[in-house]
């Protein structure tokens, strides 16, 4: 299936447009839970880029989407030209710590890793390229 592409400024205010784009191929028959998973993964990745990738005056993010329900699943690729950063290398948070000892960050990437079926990062031509794939509609979750 051919990929569709969206280019937006890496700003949190563009989040609704990015989520609309990421979920555009999902049908009304797509279970709410799966739709929510895609929205959550998209939000965590995009907000990370919008918050940390660029110094002033900022830059763009390209989101490439292919597939959807069934088949090879939904694939989303996030490309930015900011500082090289592989979020997948971030250590998982310690979920056993008590509330007062819990660090405040690191949960977003952890959620992404928990939810998606495949995740791949590469740094190429001075771009961060993060691709995630999620199979939608399979029985086990």
């Amino acid at each position, binding site marked *: 299936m051919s990929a569709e592409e969206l280019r937006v400024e890496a700003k949190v205010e563009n989040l609704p447009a990015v989520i609309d784009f990421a979920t555009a191929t999902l049908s009304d028959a797509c279970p709410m839970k799966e739709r929510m998973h895609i929205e959550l993964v998209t939000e965590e990745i995009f907000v990370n880029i919008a918050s940390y990738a660029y110094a002033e005056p900022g830059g763009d993010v390209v989101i490439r989407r292919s597939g959807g329900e069934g088949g090879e699943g939904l694939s989303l690729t996030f490309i930015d030209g900011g500082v090289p950063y592989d979020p997948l290398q971030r250590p998982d948070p310690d979920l056993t710590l008590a509330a007062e000892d*819990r660090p405040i960050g690191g949960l977003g990437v952890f959620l992404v890793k928990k939810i998606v079926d495949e995740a791949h990062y590469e740094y190429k031509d001075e771009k961060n390229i993060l691709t995630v794939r999620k199979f939608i509609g399979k029985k086990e979750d």
Partner: protein
Amino acid sequence: MEIKKEQNGTSLTMSLAGRLDTVAAADFEKELSASLDGVETLVLDCAELTYVASSGLRTFLMAQKRMAKQGKMTMRHVQDAVMEVLSMTGFDDLLSIEK
């Protein structure tokens, strides 16, 4: 997201409706900072909360840390979609959650 507040002496109930995404979490955090002075019992009613992202979890955690010093925080009527995110991150053990 919409936030409704109902104060009764030192008890405060905040009802959250809609999506607690990154944008809403910033507003929620401000609202909490402005509302918690003197509060000993904080109830977050999540009956109409349909979505939470990690930024929202961080706000819950901050509220929990503050309320642990001055009283107690309880979450109520948490929907399945939100509960799943709380469970995935171990927040179901950190927070006091009533069905």
